[in-house]
């Protein structure tokens, strides 16, 4: 479903050149639940942004649903993104001026669904995530856990093939964190591919596979918790 070949990302400012991703190659199959781990600044978020078609790589190939998308324009990426990818963020990123219902409805609007279809889909998801009773509330009236649940609703409402979660439990206490992880697990069981960036070993344990990054390179790709410098060993 997803395949990267020697993917690189270099950020340039006037004085400094930073390599965020350095020739990263891996593959993720449909229905997998993959965690991406690594210390701060190792390139996790950069990788997630590229996988989520929010950013283009500086080099290498990125195959998304068998298409080479590394050089897509912003417009092409937006088009592909809205049909196939749902996002969950650490800080929820709900729009404060929109109600729960309207926040969840957002992706359907941009996909051109009719009002009645939107109502049906949104209510279905809210019901499923057990947050229907809050449908007319605004984000600031909800607890962190509830906000993240709404964010998950928004991520799945358009039935994407893949969900990208960036530290989804980072701003939550352990009870609410577990709740969200259960939701993601449920979704995965129902066939949604999930890629999750996390610092938490506990969250990572929900995943079937862990990709560990260090200084922009993949150091290991399994469920082990040990660091094995495979890249170095290969040389």
């Amino acid at each position, binding site marked *: 479903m997803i395949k990267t070949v020697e993917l690189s990302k270099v950020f340039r400012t006037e004085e400094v050149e930073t390599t965020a991703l350095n020739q990263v190659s891996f593959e993720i199959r449909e229905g997998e639940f993959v965690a991406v781990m690594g210390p701060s600044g190792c390139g996790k978020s950069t990788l997630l942004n590229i996988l989520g078609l929010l950013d283009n790589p500086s080099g290498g190939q990125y195959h998304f649903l068998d298409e080479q998308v590394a050089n897509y324009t912003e417009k092409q990426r937006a088009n592909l993104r809205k049909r196939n990818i749902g*996002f969950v963020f650490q800080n929820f990123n709900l729009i404060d001026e929109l109600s729960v219902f309207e926040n969840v409805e957002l992706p359907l609007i941009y996909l051109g669904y009719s009002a009645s279809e939107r109502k049906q889909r949104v209510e279905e998801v809210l019901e499923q995530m057990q947050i229907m009773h809050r449908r007319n509330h605004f984000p600031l009236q909800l607890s962190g856990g509830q906000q993240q649940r709404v964010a998950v609703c928004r991520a799945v409402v358009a039935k994407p093939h893949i969900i990208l979660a960036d530290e989804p439990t980072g701003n939550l206490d352990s009870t609410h964190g577990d709740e969200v992880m259960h939701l993601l697990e449920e979704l995965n069981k129902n066939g949604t591919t999930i890629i999750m960036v996390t610092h938490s070993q506990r969250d990572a344990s929900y995943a079937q596979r862990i990709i560990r990054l260090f200084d922009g390179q993949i150091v290991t790709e399994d469920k082990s918790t040990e660091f094995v410098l495979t890249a170095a060993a290969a040389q």
Partner: protein
Amino acid sequence: MITYHIKSLLRSLQKQKTNAVVNILGLALGLGITLLIWIFVLHELSYDTFITDHDRIYRVHSQAVLGPGEPQEIPTAMFPIGEWTRREHPGVEDMVRFSSYYSSPEIIFRDESTVLPGIKFADENFFSFFGLELLTGQPEEVLSEPASIVISESTAARLAEEPLDVLYEVIHIQDQNYQITGIFKDLPDNTHLEFNAVSHHDNLPDMIKEGGLNFFTYLKVTPGADIAGIQQYMDETLADHVQTNPRYEGMTFHVAHRLMNIGDIHLRSNLIWEMKEGGSWQSVLVFSLLSVFILFVAIINYVNLATARSMLRAKEIGVRKVSGASRGNLIRQIMTESFLTVLLALVVAIVLAEIFSVWFSQILGIPLNLSTLLSTGGLLVILMILAVTGLLSGLYPAFYLSSFNPVRTLKGEVVRGKAGQRFRQALVVFQFTITIFVISSLVVMTRQLHYIQNRDLGFDQEEVIILENLSGGLWQSFQSVRARLESIPRVVSTGGANFIYGGTTNVSLISELGTEYDSGVLADVVTVDHGFLDVMGVDLVDGRNFHAGSEMDVQSALILNETAVRALGFEDPLGKQLDVVNIQGPLIGVISDFHMKSLHQPIEPLVLNYAQMGFPHIYLKAAPGEFAPLMGDITDALQEFDPNYTPNIRFLDETIALLYQQERRATSLLSTGAILAFVISLLGVYGLAAFAAERRVKEMGIRIVLGASIRQLLWKYNRESVILAVLSMLIAWPIAWLAMDRWMSGFAFTVSINPLWFILPGVLILVSGAVIISIQTHLAFKNNPVEALRHE
């Protein structure tokens, strides 16, 4: 989708109330004055467009050359020229002419005497030509008999309780009977035509038709007709006529014709003898520009606030992008928001316009009616304003905001583009420049107006009253009327004259008797009696005044002003024999120069001649005191001679003030504009400062922790605005100076420009901006920004 946008807009307005008020109020003020100005502009442009085929109707103007000098253009033509042209020129389809004869004749109707001003004597197709509406009567027939007269609805209402009852009754005017054959609907306000009654020109004495340029003449041309060709045809035809007609033998008589479209007359003609005071296209242009300026200032506020607040929206934009919004979606959304905000502001603006329309009508001197906006033109203007304002307000924010990188905004990285900031600074400079320009211009115009209204005009205008348009009865017993008026204790002196101050005078060539024609000069010729110079307090610098009752002086004595003496090159003027058209005689006195016309014009050579009776106007000098009882005494005195006469009284100082009405209107409107531009600009500064202070809490906290004092902070945060204000001054000054120099060139007498008039408005902007920013900084400082650091 649109309801969705409306909902989210209303919620964000509610959430950011200061922002909402500044945005909507700023826009509404700008839009409000724009609407009012455009109602005025539409009114000015609507003149005479109700006339059938107005685009094909032209008035014939004559440029008459009288002696040396520039030809003078007048809005009338010789009687036969219109008819010849209609008959002979294929480009002319129809023609109508009319002339006045009596100014305010006494009439007798149902045995009662009254006056009927504004009678025109016209061709019989008058009503069908202009397509004027008749309440009763057929347009083609009402004037078919010479002794018929058609009167206006309001005249009919004045004559009888049941206006329509007057039909077929007889009006007696100056020894002749006229039968009322029709009643026309009162003319609307937006026409250059003015008359209360129309009869046939067969009633006019032959001399009116035979010589002189006495007839307003209108031609209806065929579609696409060659206007220049018609003018040329008229010039040639008249030249032939003059050459072959013994009547003109030995006379210098040359007339060039010019056709002016009836729709242009109100704004572009403004010649002497117009039926009523015209408008000015310069005013229309200046006012439209002012409205555009103010609207720009308001739009800039919106754009600045929208982009400055972009940080607050960055997250929303990011979320929308990851939820699948394309850039196009976002641009559409932000544009929709801007249009909705403008629409909201427009509603407020219409309310404001309605509230201020009465006051505005007074400023502009025309009735402004908001219902004008419901006409096709009005709706087009509203749509145009909405489109332009919405587009200009939304375009930059839309492209700017939608360009945000969602990855960075969602991480909470502050979006702070250098380009965005520069753009905002440029807009502030533009806004300040306009404001300084408008205020500086206002100061200069006000000073000039003050100067011309307080300049020594060469006579004493205080307590001088003009009794205008005496009736025929009063004309005839003029000296007795004068004596009776002077017997009123408060009346100091009286004098007769044949001109109204500031109005038109006869102009003719004067020269020393026996010299070449070429050595003459053009001078204003005014007939007065011996009391006139006394009433006006004009000094006699040499010689004597006219002797009361001297038949000799009536026949030949002349008085010149100093300018005329200089122009004629007289070293020792007294006793020189002068030749002034129909008077030849000695120069008996020289008076000091005084202004007889507005200060737009220089003092021209003037010649006074003497008459003892037959003056249409009396000038009267009163002792200071209350005027109401004096008016009563004057009315009583005049009615002893003519019981039906209602005096038409004007104060000289008011008459003089009327000469600068256009300028006063412009100044009043400009003050409104200046205040608005100033308020809107400061609203913008306030909005930006409030927002900056809000954002700077953390920065201030760090600075304070590191030891910054409030004074250092104030300077830090004021510096940018001070630099922008100074930059704006440097741009605004030369533009304002040039514009005012141009404006002042319309006056023959001008005040000298004081640099302070330009500096002070700039300083005003600078200081006001600094005060606002300092207050905001101070408030933020008081709230202890160090606290904010703990919550980071």
